[in-house]
């Protein structure tokens, strides 16, 4: 447990988190714009959609999480479901 005078770490300051996220958003925007500057080779037709990979990655992950959340309703059981609670103390 913390001992009163603990050192303040990097992510304890919300400003640092904010700064990191801003940098991250900037990179995302640059990458999406990269599609309009650079010329990609096209293998499949859907790759012609501007920023295809960016859109696909975003939508895929949102869907993944939302579906997984719904799966919890069907699949989730208590920790002791099989009658042998976790070995972690």
């Amino acid at each position, binding site marked *: *447990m*913390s001992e009163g005078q603990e050192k303040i*770490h990097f*992510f*304890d300051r919300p400003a640092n988190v904010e700064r990191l*996220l801003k940098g*991250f*958003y900037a*990179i*995302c925007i640059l*990458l*999406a714009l*990269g*599609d309009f500057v*650079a*010329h*990609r*080779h096209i*293998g*499949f037709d*859907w790759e012609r959609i501007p*920023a295809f*990979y*960016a*859109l*696909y*990655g*975003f*939508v*895929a*992950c*949102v869907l*993944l*999480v*939302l*579906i*997984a*959340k719904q*799966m*919890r309703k*069907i*699949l*989730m*059981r*208590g*920790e002791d*479901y*099989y009658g*042998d*609670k*976790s*070995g*972690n*103390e």
Partner: protein
Amino acid sequence: MSELSPFLIYFAAALAAACVRGLPRQLLLLATPVAAGLYLWLGLTPGTDVTYTLMNYELTVLRTDKLSLLFGYLFCIASFFAGIFSLHVKDTKQHVAGMMYAGSALGAVFSGDLITLFIFWELLAISSVFLIWARGTERALRAGMRYLVYQVLSGVLLLAGALVYHHNTGSLAFDHIGLDAGIAGWLIFIAFGIKCAFPFLHSWLTDGYPEATVTGTVFLSAFTTKVAVYALARGFAGEEIMVYIGVTMACFPIFYAVIENDLRKVLAYSLINQVGFMVTGIGIGTALALNGAVAHAFSDVIFKGLLFMSMGAVLYRTGNINGSDLGGLYKSMPKTTLLCIIGALSISAFPLFSGFVSKSMVMTALMQENHGYFWLLMLFASAGVFHHAGIKIPYFAFFHHDSGIRTEEAPRNMLIAMGVAAALCIFIGSQPQYLYALLPWEVEYWPYDLTHVLAQTQLLFFSALAFVWLNKQGLYPPELRSVNLDAEWFYRRLVPAGAQHTLALLRRMKETMLKTLTAHMQSVKNEFGKSPMATYHLSESWPTGSMVFWISAILAAFLLLDISGLGR
């Protein structure tokens, strides 16, 4: 040219490790993989065959070609960093089991016939289960038992398949088998499929690996599934069904990984997902796809080992590996955090890290063969990998909210082991020509061009953006202490519950039947009591003794009649 099979080095070392303690054993752990690796590199050339004849069967204990040598090098590397990682362990049986396990994996990939393969296949099962049992908990004991049942079943199927194959073809050689070989082909295919964690046959992995010891899981993640990948690449390359199986394997575990709480179990699901890419590559069967499959096995052993080591270090230091209880550990374990992030970047296939140079081969092969929809699904799986293994693992263990846990940095040997694996991840990722030179099939490929790098970086950054957005919206599912139902439900819940239900039903049936019968007998007796017959002298109840007396009397009378000759 040498005739010594490399597994012997490991088996001898395992024997020696059982006899010594302390520093000599630690030296053994370090020296064995180095010695075996050097021997493979310098002492063996592709094209060596060492055969013995045993009871009319020709057994090939050593067959070297570029494919078996590649896995040989890989297993030496894996046992090297896993050995360093477990240097602090005092438990003899874990060290012996680890060495035997690594040796069996080498034996399996160098075996040139199905019987030798079967022997090492079973040795893999038996040696590895001790790494689960060594945890010592009741839960680990039971999980180990279930693991062993699956592994031995796989061995039995392999043996049955081998015998049918020999009966049909007259050969035991372990070369391309194919599903055209009929029942023999299918038996062997399913045997390989169990060890490869095909869907519905995978639960031994997600059930067993998270229960193993801190160091045991590192060994486990390296060998069993990769031996199976090797066996499939050797025996069933180009079987189209594997494309379907591989894509399923790459896609379904990521959903589980998102909602799983035990972070080592998340990695177990992610292991199946990565093996899915390899199985798909083998199913496509072109030179590029096969190279991609085995190259991805090579990088996967190293980055998955690194991730399991970092989670092992967390478990070792905090005694807990549940995402719900961890968080903020970057404060006390900064080096482990950094090394874990390198593993996470590698598995997510960031450019300059090892996953990128191998996974992109499978993706390109899918594109070349015009598997459009599979390609989209695999792209989905690639984004999903980053989501659950690349972000979730480091985020919930080391960042997230501060759990208040303050601990020490991982022990030095663990840091060195993780450092070795991390260095290899970056080396393979940034200098892929050295790995490519080892690949068995001849094909020109280079992953670093603008298209690939831009596309992959976009995919990954926007997957991360999705994570940030979902978290900010409060949509991201919290880590909850829970169990998620998977294929193991069938035999851990349905079958036992079904058996109990049937037993209860039978018991009830027996009781009802007895009750009806006694009631019936009673009513017959009562009816009889009412009839005039009941008053007759002989129909009263007599003691058994009197009956015996009267029967004896009758028999005696017969005897007397017989003696006197009256009966004839």
